[in-house]
């Protein structure tokens, strides 16, 4: 480019940036802005210039496109946040603003040293409160701050006398304070969430803002996770090299379940729920399909009180009975350590400076929001006199945080009464000014109030800060309230650096020796059970939807020609539909002629009625939730398809489609199910999980074919009808082409049975499914390996027997008719035998592999003084 043109382009860039800044500066409402130098609304801080210049160059449509992209990428990665009290029970897609929050190197260094000190201090306080309690004894902390905290678990006192697991993950919420520095206004020490969202946000942003990202020197997040993985393994001491680590989640109903699933697969830990673990011999074991396997470290996302129904909250179904005892004996390390919610109390704030001085000999480096604990008279009086200016928090989150100023007079008086009745429970906190930061709104760069969540992980005796974090902005220019539950928008946080930052790989260093040890990931029994059922539901949905399609074709044939033979076949198809979906009485109700006169209503219900168990939509729903329960086990692409199925379901529920729309929906559903089926075959590695999944599919398919063959070929009513029945059967089983090709001239029930029942090479036949079931069972782990046990399990014996029966069957004898009632007794007997064998295989598999999946209950307590 000639220098003249270059200069012009630069001038043009400059003008555009000026225009952008001018527009932006006009809407800034608060004292501190992240981008503008304070006191001068046109002066941009240097570290924002490259990004803003690039954005200034883009036309509004381009910016809007980025916004669109950001949303699409997040949705496609399935990043969601479950919203409590949502009647539909659906999760909300994560909202992402494509303009990152930028932090300069200097600013970040200040934050880092402040937060590291704070994390160390909080960790010391935690261990003192559950240990010697010197803070109370020496008067550095009023005893009631601990004793009145609902999260102070007496069962955990003295738990950490020997091993001292740190507050492993510490999270601080930050906002700009009055001096323009970042201040802490909230700590999270129990089971802090958000780091997975930060990571997923970064991955999405590096796609949406690829060129801007490359042009800026942004520090990488992967170092943080690498540090975390190393530090977690270290926690176990040097007992063995390769501890088994699990990530414990409260389950798919939790608001941040997505993150649990995401982090567990990113970090390579088995995702477990409380019911997947059991305590034996005061050690913790994972109930996997390989049997019990000892767990050394639990990274938990379950709140303290829910972790053990024996010693903590009795009504918890999310925990592991005996877990506290296992910790007490040092047989397992739980992080964050049980009981850690006490140190996220805002009542600690006024005392931290003194504790830091007394214990560390240092001043607090990081300022935190001024707070007044109402357990002290002077402080209480101040809070009560300034209710309208303060944020009122409970010391243990047993009550909601409220902004005094946003209450009505009556509400404020109620709050006053509550504080006066129970002052120990409340803290008044100064409301931080916050700063604003550029966000993209309707194609314009506009200021929004901003909060930053920072993540630290304990490592090598200190803490290491994620160079980045989760930035959240208010939904509009005036709003203060920023939470994900109420619809905040998140942003990526770019910490800038002079030095190029190398990407860290999470794969273990091949020289470190940990590769050989290679802890295989175990499949929890519950996950195995879910996969088995996902397989069954997927296959059932596919079967039902195909049958529906055949039924619709038949119905329109019949409507056109009003042919009696068509009608006879249609009736059989309809009753098959009822049998297959188990939506009795439906089309098998005796003497209900009306339903056959106008079958549309029932067909519509079998397809779309959520109230009808067994309907297509409820089967799809079961498929979706089954898959969601093992969110961690699907590849990104597979999850995208599952998410599409979820969208289809909500769409169908919302639109309430008419009968005439059924056709269109059927095609969409078949497409989604085929995509799911294809991806699971191609991208799931053939390990225990896949075998479980495919076992479910094969079993279901065999049972379906049995039902259809029984219904359509179980009796003989003349060659014409039989021909139609065979065609309907073949078409609903995707076998019409094969059948026609093979038996073009000799179509008969015998040919049909040969293909769909006996042919071991036809992937739709019963015999083929049996063959596969045998193969899969042989691949599943054997829990008892001794020379004395029989070579085959019970289910394998059953399968071998069935397979032999099928091999020995002779097609001509099978289709022989009983003269008196036109039935085919040999065929029916064979189908019944195979069916009951398959049902017993299903029972044996669940008994062998899923029997661990029950919940514990409390023993009835005995009353004292009862006579």
């Amino acid at each position, binding site marked *: 480019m000639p220098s003249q043109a270059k200069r012009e382009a630069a001038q043009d860039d400059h003008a555009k940036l000026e225009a952008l800044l001018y527009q932006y500066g006009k809407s800034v409402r608060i004292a501190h802005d992240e981008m503008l130098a304070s006191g001068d609304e046109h002066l941009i801080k240097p570290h924002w210039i490259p990004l803003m210049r690039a954005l200034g160059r883009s036309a509004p449509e381009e910016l809007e496109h980025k916004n669109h992209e950001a949303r699409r990428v997040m949705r496609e990665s399935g990043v969601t946040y479950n919203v409590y009290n949502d009647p539909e029970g659906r999760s909300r897609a994560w909202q992402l603003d494509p303009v990152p929050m930028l932090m300069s190197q200097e600013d970040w260094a200040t934050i880092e040293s402040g937060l590291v000190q704070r994390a160390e201090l909080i960790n010391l306080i935690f261990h003192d409160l559950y240990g010697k309690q010197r803070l109370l004894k020496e008067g550095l902390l009023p005893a009631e701050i601990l004793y009145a905290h609902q999260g102070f678990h007496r069962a955990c006192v003295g738990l950490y006398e020997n091993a001292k697991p740190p507050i492993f993950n510490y999270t601080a919420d930050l906002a700009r304070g009055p001096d323009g520095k970042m201040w802490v206004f909230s700590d999270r020490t129990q089971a802090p969430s958000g780091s997975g969202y930060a990571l997923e946000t970064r991955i999405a942003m590096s796609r949406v803002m690829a060129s801007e990202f490359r042009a800026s020197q942004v520090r990488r997040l992967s170092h943080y996770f690498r540090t975390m993985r190393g530090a977690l393994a270290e926690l176990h001491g040097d007992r063995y090299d390769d501890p088994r680590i699990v990530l414990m989640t409260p389950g798919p109903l939790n608001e941040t379940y997505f993150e649990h699933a995401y982090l567990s697969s990113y970090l390579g830990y088995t995702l477990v729920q409380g019911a997947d673990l059991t305590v034996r011999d*005061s050690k913790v074991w994972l109930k996997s399909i390989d049997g019990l396997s000892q767990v050394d470290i639990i990274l938990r996302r379950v709140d303290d009180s829910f972790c053990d129904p024996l010693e903590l909250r009795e009504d918890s179904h999310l925990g592991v009975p005996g877990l506290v*005892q296992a910790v*007490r004996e040092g047989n397992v390390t739980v992080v964050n350590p049980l009981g850690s919610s006490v140190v996220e109390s805002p009542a600690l704030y006024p005392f931290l400076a003194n504790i830091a001085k007394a214990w560390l000999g240092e001043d607090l480096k990081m300022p935190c929001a001024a707070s007044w604990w109402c357990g002290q008279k002077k402080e209480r009086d101040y809070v009560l006199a300034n209710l309208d200016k303060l944020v009122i928090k409970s010391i243990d989150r047993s009550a909601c945080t409220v902004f005094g100023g946003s209450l009505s007079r009556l509400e404020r008086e109620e709050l006053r009464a509550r504080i006066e*009745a129970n002052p120990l429970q409340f803290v008044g906190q100064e409301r931080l000014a916050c700063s604003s930061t550029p966000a993209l709104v309707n194609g314009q760069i506009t200021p929004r109030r901003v909060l930053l969540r920072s993540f630290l992980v304990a490592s090598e005796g200190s803490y290491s800060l994620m160079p980045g974090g989760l930035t959240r902005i208010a939904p509009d220019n005036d709003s203060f309230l920023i939470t994900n539950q109420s619809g905040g928008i998140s942003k990526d946080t770019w910490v800038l650096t002079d030095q190029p930052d190398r990407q860290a790989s999470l794969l273990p260093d091949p020289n470190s020796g940990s590769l050989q040890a290679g802890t295989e990931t175990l499949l929890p029994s519950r996950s195995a059970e879910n996969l088995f059922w996902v397989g069954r539901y997927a296959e059932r949905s596919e079967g039902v939807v195909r049958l529906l399609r055949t039924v619709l074709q038949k119905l329109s044939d019949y409507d056109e020609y009003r042919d009696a033979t068509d009608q006879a076949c249609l009736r059989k198809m309809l009753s098959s539909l009822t049998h297959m979906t188990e939506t009795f009485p439906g089309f098998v109700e005796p003497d209900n002629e009306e339903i056959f006169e106008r079958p549309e209503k029932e067909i519509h219900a079998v397809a779309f009625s959520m109230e009808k168990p067994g309907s297509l939509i409820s089967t799809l729903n079961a498929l979706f939730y089954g898959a969601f329960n093992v969110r961690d086990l699907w590849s990104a692409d597979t999850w995208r398809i599952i998410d599409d199925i979820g969208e289809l379901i909500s769409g169908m529920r919302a639109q309430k489609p008419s009968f005439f729309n059924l056709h269109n929906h059927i095609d969409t559903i078949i497409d989604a199910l085929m995509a799911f089926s294809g991806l699971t075959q191609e991208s799931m590695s053939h390990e225990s999980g896949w075998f479980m999944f495919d076992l479910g599919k094969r079993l279901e398919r065999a049972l379906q074919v049995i039902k259809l063959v029984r219904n359509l070929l179980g009796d003989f009513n003349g060659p014409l009808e039989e021909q139609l029945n065979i065609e309907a059967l073949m078409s609903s089983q995707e076998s019409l082409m094969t059948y026609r090709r093979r038996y073009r001239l000799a179509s008969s029930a015998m040919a049909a049975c040969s293909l769909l029942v006996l042919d071991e090479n036809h992937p739709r036949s019963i015999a083929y499914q049996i063959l596969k079931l045998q193969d899969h069972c042989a691949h599943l782990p054997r829990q008892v390996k001794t020379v004395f046990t029989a070579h085959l399990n019970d289910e394998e014996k059953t399968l071998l027997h069935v397979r032999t029966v099928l091999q020995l069957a002779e097609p001509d004898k099978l289709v022989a008719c009983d003269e008196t009632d036109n039935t085919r007794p040999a065929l029916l007997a064979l189908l019944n035998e195979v069916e009951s064998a398959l049902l017993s295989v299903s029972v044996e598999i669940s008994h062998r592999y899923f029997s661990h999946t029950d919940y514990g*209950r409390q*023993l009835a307590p*005995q009353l*004292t003084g009862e006579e």
Partner: protein
Amino acid sequence: MHYRVSHTTRYTYESTVTVCQNIARLTPYSNHNQRCLKSFFNIDPAPQCMRSYMDAFGNQVTYFEISRPHQELTITVVSEVEVKNQSQQELFKTDVPWDRLRDQIRASRDERTIMVRDYCLPSPLVPIIAGVQEYALQSFLPGRPLMEATRDLMQRIFTEFKYDPSFTTISTPLQDVLQHRKGVCQDFSHLALASLRSLGLPARYVSGYIETIPPEGEEKMQGSDASHAWFSVYSPNNGWVEFDPTNNLVPDDQHISLAQGRDFADVTPLKGVIFGGGKHELDVAVDVRRE
């Protein structure tokens, strides 16, 4: 006095229990009032794992697991305890006004007194309830000595409340007890705790046994005793002093203590989580004998 206490708990299940984890607070502690000479558990079926430790309240806790299928579980604890005769006269001689003691406790920088403040606060089963402070203040007149006022409170609970095992369950809220003036020893103790704590006084729950003496000329029936509960109040000069509102007496040598805590939830004699089992029945037999 030397006692031999035997406490048997039997659970019978409708269907098989595959695993259970339990904790028991059934071993008497030793302190200045009593000495536990020996104590042993007999559990059937035999546990695969059994441990004991001291909890945050100073009680001995026994943890055990049974991981073999069973339909019945029997836990018997036999203990021998030496109970000293407490001189009550001494306590009342050095009695100090309760309001002065309260302020003293609040202001104290003495470690032991600071730790005792845990017992001034509401606890899971002894919440702050309306009306309880008014109830307490009738006994706690300004300047009245602590022991005397507490004895008066105990006496009022004894006379104004009806002992009625049919009224309460394990989860009867304290508010109902106060309103209906009925309950069992556990409720009376919780009520006394709520009263004392409403005034800012430290008070704690004690579980244990009481020796019952059969009417003249009758043989004492085996297993007829029961577990019992009472409370204690703290004063810097006397330490913890016990009161039994169910029997309206200051224990001397007929009360054998098992465990102490903020309320029943801290000292539950036996609890467990079972897998399987269906419905279950519970049978308890306690026998307290002089040796």
